[in-house]
């Protein structure tokens, strides 16, 4: 038993060393100092495989993404071995399948480095903050109150869910949120103007989903008697009033 425990203790994830197959590939291409547009695919594939083998040998859990990339590399290697069917050589270099995503990924690696080189707040530059508000700020806030951000609101939400059953929130889905959002918007319009024509509420809709969402919002509001829906006897225009 102890032996097994030891093994799991030393288990490392390949992802801890490399963030993913792209990251490993960048490392190999860099180590070999080759042009990414002219990757010696056979040699890189071999090194990639050796790396995976080494990882397995030291008990590292190789994630699926690494295997997918291994398959892609092997496939490209085999395509390189086949003679080109197109005499004029118009056929695309099979390596492009990996070069394009690699180049794009590299762009963002550089961009991340550029960001790190800027004068970062709370590392290179600092603000004046966290004063307990004695000077110039005499009327402070009551104790026990904190300033809020969206994530704190979401945190509060998750806390409640942990405490009570998640089933109270089963009705919170992207679809119902969009209906709730529309209800809120219609309430805004009615607060500002008192009433609105049925038609107007659909004027800005662009997609079919939007139209359905607006319709569901109106129905829900009518059910809760937040609105009254009236039709003009002569013109036939339907108008929505605050309930």
């Amino acid at each position, binding site marked *: 038993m102890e032996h097994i425990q030891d093994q799991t203790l030393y288990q490392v994830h390949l992802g801890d060393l490399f963030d993913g197959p792209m990251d490993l590939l960048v490392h190999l291409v860099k180590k070999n100092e080759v042009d990414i547009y002219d990757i010696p695919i056979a040699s890189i594939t071999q090194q990639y495989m050796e790396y995976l083998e080494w990882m397995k040998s030291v008990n590292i859990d190789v994630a699926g993404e690494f295997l997918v990339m291994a398959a892609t590399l092997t496939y490209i290697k085999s395509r390189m071995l086949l003679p080109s069917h197109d005499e004029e050589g118009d056929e695309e270099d099979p390596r492009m399948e990996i070069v394009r995503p690699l180049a794009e990924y590299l762009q963002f690696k550089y961009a991340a480095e550029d960001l790190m080189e800027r004068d970062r707040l709370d590392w290179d530059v600092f603000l*004046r903050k966290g004063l307990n508000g004695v000077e110039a*700020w005499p009327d402070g806030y009551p104790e026990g*109150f904190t300033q809020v951000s*969206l994530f704190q*609101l979401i945190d509060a939400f998750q806390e409640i869910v942990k405490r009570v059953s*998640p089933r*109270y929130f089963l009705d919170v889905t*992207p679809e119902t949120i969009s209906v709730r959002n529309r209800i*809120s918007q219609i309430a805004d319009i009615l607060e500002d103007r008192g009433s609105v024509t049925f038609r107007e509420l659909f004027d800005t809709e662009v997609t079919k989903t939007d139209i359905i969402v607006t319709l569901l919002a109106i129905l829900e*509001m009518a059910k809760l008697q937040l609105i009254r829906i009236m039709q003009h006897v002569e013109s036939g225009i339907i108008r929505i009033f605050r309930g």
Partner: protein
Amino acid sequence: MDNLKAIIESLLFVAETPLKLDKIKSVLEVADRKAIRDALSSLAEEYESDNRGFFLTEVAGGFQIRTRPEYGRWIRRLKETRPPRLSRAGMETLAIVAYKQPVLRSDVEFIRGVDSGGTLRTLLERGLIRIMGRRDLPGRPIIYGTTRKFLEIFDLKDLNELPTLKELKDLGETWPNDSR
């Protein structure tokens, strides 16, 4: 050390409590107390003669830059427009209203398991929630929803920006080496 005065000024600027001379001495590893003291007086004089919006004062055994009292009224005006602070109960209640609106007080209390009348009233007063109408039920209970001010304060374009539980769960755990 070059720029001793400017470095001390930057320390004073970020210090959250009055900065003791010995603290400056140890941070900068400067042996000469007099050099620090000279830099401090020269900063104090410059703030006076240059008519800065702040001054250097010796308080509670240390040095601190403070805004001039005569500008207090403007600073209070600035601070009044800040987002409100909310208690834990306030956040919870607001989260329930945001996610479950249009919602009744009894729904909120059923979920939270505690009386929430006072919290709802506070949220109403702060303009974060509003009365959308009344249910056709005994006692005509109030229906609550969030306001435009709520969206502004939480920097939301609309309620569609609220993630669902499932979506939060799908994102999985944070990376351990990223969380402080």
